[in-house]
């Protein structure tokens, strides 16, 4: 039965950085892709889905474990796979025809026929007439079609798609998805399997035969869901909704006890939770929206109701959970009394409520304590950054501080002066010297 196994990922772990600045992107991943399958890798940002895709492609190599293609370990770029990029990666100085033909030239084909072959592929994706156009003259959807044509030109067995629709507007994305599915299910492509990275749940459910859900910290597989609905699929079907719900519950998880929900302070034992990079504005919007629902509410519905991306939604929900403004269980969200109070409060009361909860976030608590320990009540940004570095990769540490300062500023707990890069206690938060009578 293993005859048609195309790709096998065995115990793959990827660690970036060296020494005490290590960061585990994905940990112990196992997955198999068979011929004829369309597999979607789904996960919030930071779950390592792009890292995994690049290891499968050979663009980066695993720290531990191995990727096997048709039973052979992959070293360097896998010659049987190709990729469609989120940002298209078309060469702006080449025409559509030259962009597609370039993929053939790379295979050593310098014959004149390469142009007619490229033309056929351009016809296939429905861009006939645009051969001599330059990428800048095309819409996003058309550019991505060129990306597909270029990928097909090398007759790959495994087609890797790296969020191919997320740089497109909603309508172009929808129509391009439909056209791709038509080509794929119609069997007119030489491709043996498709692996798509996505952060859009509806997209994954509507296209894939199997959805692999990645969790984060570190990136790992948290669920594998087979989608056995016939094509074309409709998001309105109840079976479709059930699957969306299941995937959301896998991605959003459920609210933990406060201890583990907020994590521990940097430097102390236990996992320091990464602060979700969501803004107070987005949080307020979310809470206002769900304040009307008395019963737990399906998260997947929020996506279209609020018109936000899955990734942003998940971050806002995480923020609400961390601050105890909402609880999440099996794909449903419910606002807490505190959250309700926040949603209905005035601007100033909101700040107070927020400050109360934000004070309990270990990261912010830790910063306040450090600031209180110095007489001046201010410390260079660098101090915090250096302290965070052992626990987070560089960019994350910087983003973490940005988020913490942002939250602290809103809650009037912390202040930051960009000129001298000093973090300080907010004036209102500074301990007044006690005056004895």
């Amino acid at each position: 039965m293993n005859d048609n196994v195309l790709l096998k990922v065995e115990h793959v772990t990827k660690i970036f950085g060296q020494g005490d600045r290590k960061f585990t992107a994905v940990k112990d991943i196992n997955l198999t892709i068979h011929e004829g399958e369309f597999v979607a890798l789904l996960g919030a940002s930071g779950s390592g889905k792009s890292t995994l895709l690049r290891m499968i492609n050979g663009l980066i190599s695993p720290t531990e474990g191995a990727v096997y293609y048709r039973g052979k370990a992959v070293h360097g770029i896998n010659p049987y796979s190709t990729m469609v990029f989120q940002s298209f990666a078309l060469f702006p100085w080449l025409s559509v025809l030259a962009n597609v033909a370039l993929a053939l030239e790379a295979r050593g084909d310098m014959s004149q026929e390469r142009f007619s072959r490229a033309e056929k592929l351009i016809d296939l994706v429905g861009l006939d007439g645009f051969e001599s156009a330059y990428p800048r003259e095309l819409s996003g959807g058309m550019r991505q079609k060129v990306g597909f044509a270029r990928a097909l030109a090398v007759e790959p067995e495994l087609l890797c798609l790296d969020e191919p629709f997320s740089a497109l507007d909603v309508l172009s994305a929808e129509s391009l998805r439909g056209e791709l599915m038509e080509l794929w299910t119609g069997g007119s492509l030489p491709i043996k399997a498709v692996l798509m990275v996505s952060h859009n749940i509806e997209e994954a459910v509507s296209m894939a035969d199997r959805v692999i859900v990645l969790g984060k910290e570190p990136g790992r597989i948290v669920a594998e869901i087979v989608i056995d609905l016939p094509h074309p699929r409709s998001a309105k079907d109840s079976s479709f909704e059930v699957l969306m719900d299941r995937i959301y519950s896998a991605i959003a998880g459920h609210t933990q006890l406060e201890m583990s929900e907020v994590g521990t302070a940097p430097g102390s034992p236990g996992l320091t939770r990464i602060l979700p990079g969501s803004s107070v504005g987005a949080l307020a919007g979310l809470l206002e929206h769900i304040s009307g629902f008395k019963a737990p509410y399906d998260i997947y519905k929020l996506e279209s109701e609020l018109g936000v991306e899955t990734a942003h939604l998940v971050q806002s929900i995480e923020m609400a959970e961390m601050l105890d403004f909402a609880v999440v269980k099996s794909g449903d969200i419910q606002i807490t009394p505190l959250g309700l109070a926040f949603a209905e409060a005035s601007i100033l009361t909101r700040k107070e409520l927020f400050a109360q909860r934000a004070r309990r976030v270990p990261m912010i608590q830790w910063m306040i304590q450090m600031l209180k320990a110095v007489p001046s009540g201010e410390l260079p940004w660098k101090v915090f950054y250096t302290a965070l570095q052992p626990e987070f990769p560089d960019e994350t540490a910087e983003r973490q501080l940005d988020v913490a300062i942002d939250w602290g500023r809103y809650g009037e707990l912390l202040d930051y002066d960009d000129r001298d890069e000093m973090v300080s206690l907010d004036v209102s938060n500074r301990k007044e010297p006690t005056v004895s009578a």
Partner: protein
Amino acid sequence: MFLRQRIFRQPSGEGVGFGKGDLAVLLLIAVILYFGLQLALGTPAIIEGPEINLDPAAVPFYALMSIGRMLAAYILSLLFSIIYGYAAARSRSAERWLMPALDILQSVPILSFLPVVLLGLTAILPQGIAVELAAVILIFTSQAWNLTFSFYQSMRTIPGEYLEAAAVFRFSPWLRFKQVEIPFAAMGLIWNSVMSWAGGWFFLMAAEMFTLGDRDFRLPGLGAYLQTAAIDGDTQALIIGIVTLIIIIVLLDQLVWRPLLAWAARFKVSQVSDDNPPTSWFLSSLRGSRVVTFLNMRLFKPFNLWLDRKLNRPPQHISSLEPDAERKRSLLGWLMLLLLALLLGYGVFQAAGMLVTVPLEQWGQIVIGAGATLLRVSIAVLIALVWTIPVGVLIGTNARAAAILQPIVQIAASIPATALFPILLIRLLGVPGGANMAAVLLMLLGTQWYLLFNVIAGASAIPQDLQYTSDLLLLKGWRRWKTLILPSLFPYIITGLITASGGAWNASIVAEYTHFGGEITQVTGLGAQITSATAAGDFALLLAATLTMIVLVVAVNRLVWRRLFRVAEDRFRMDQ
């Protein structure tokens, strides 16, 4: 027209202070200087250059010679920059040494090397070849660094997805070079070539005729022609020479750089169409010409195809894109390093031995000279600031003024200051304090354009909505300057100042000590000390003064300019 792209951006290195690498590079430069001086000991005491013929009929020949020197140096620079930039961008371990080295090299006042290079080369080579080579080396050192930085930065800033696409689609090294690397580097290389040529003319004019005591280094070329004409008081020849120079520069601009820029506009990465892409009448006429089409079909295309067929070999294996982990140095590597360290140690020891012989009193003079030159540089830069800010803002914000002033400014800026220097000297040498005035003026002439172009770029980059807001708030006069214009200009002024002050230090070598019409005029200054020490054959003093200047310039760069630059980047950049 393309002023916005003319921002002379100094690449900001890692730190503001001095690092280990910086120290090593400075020591290396000291050692090279020392060995150069050792060579220079063998220089003949009297050298006579070839006669320069002031007959206008000789001008085309001189012009061709000058262009030839520039071209040779430029080709060298281009090759160097591609190889060096490639090495630094490709290998982490190489990058750690190559980039700080480049950073120091570009802030070293190049002209301070001229005496050593000239003397060193004449000692080992026939005089004609030596002077020729010295000129080419000097121009090379003025052209290579910014080209290298530009290429390196282009290599490092190729968007990741293009590198990934090149790997996934299995591009051969040739295909990657042709379709990814060169297109991404083209714009930067061409703009920097324009700058390099401008800088090159400045140094060529100085290098073609250089007198040190009884040694008269001279090369048949426009620079020597101009200086001779000035000495002989031949106004007609002087005018012919300068006009020829301007014509050459304008022709190069119109027939080479503009077409290249217009052609390279296709390599702009942005996926949106440019509103007014650079144009070139020459390129357009070339494109329409039948001869060119014929040549293209019969010559260029087949050659291109032949090259592709020869070089585009699909690779068997393409490795992952990750940066190579720090590899352990091999035994040979360690031995090489040890050898290098020993050589460096020996050189440093010897150079230090030479420096020790410089009496304390002379060190005192060096300090005074450094102070005097610093003062002159500051005055020149201040004068430049005072006039370039208002004029630059006028050109940058007022289309009508720009239409009139821009062409004038561009022509004026294209004349290398060193070509005008002899005229300045004739006018000023009789006047009391004239030598000082001439020195400051030469510094000013050589550096003000950097500032002006930056101010224009900054002023034209002030966002329209901020201008409207200021109008609505009725911000006028000084308040408008304080709240809108000066903060917007600040980053541009700083970038301009960095280049300008570097140029001024450089100019001090030729500005403070002049040998003109058989008469030596000298003012107190580090530049004068360097040149006079060479003339007198006092190599210990020469070494001391040159090193002082290098360290001073690098230190000012690190401690003042780079800090200001960082402030400018952090606080006053518009595009955040």
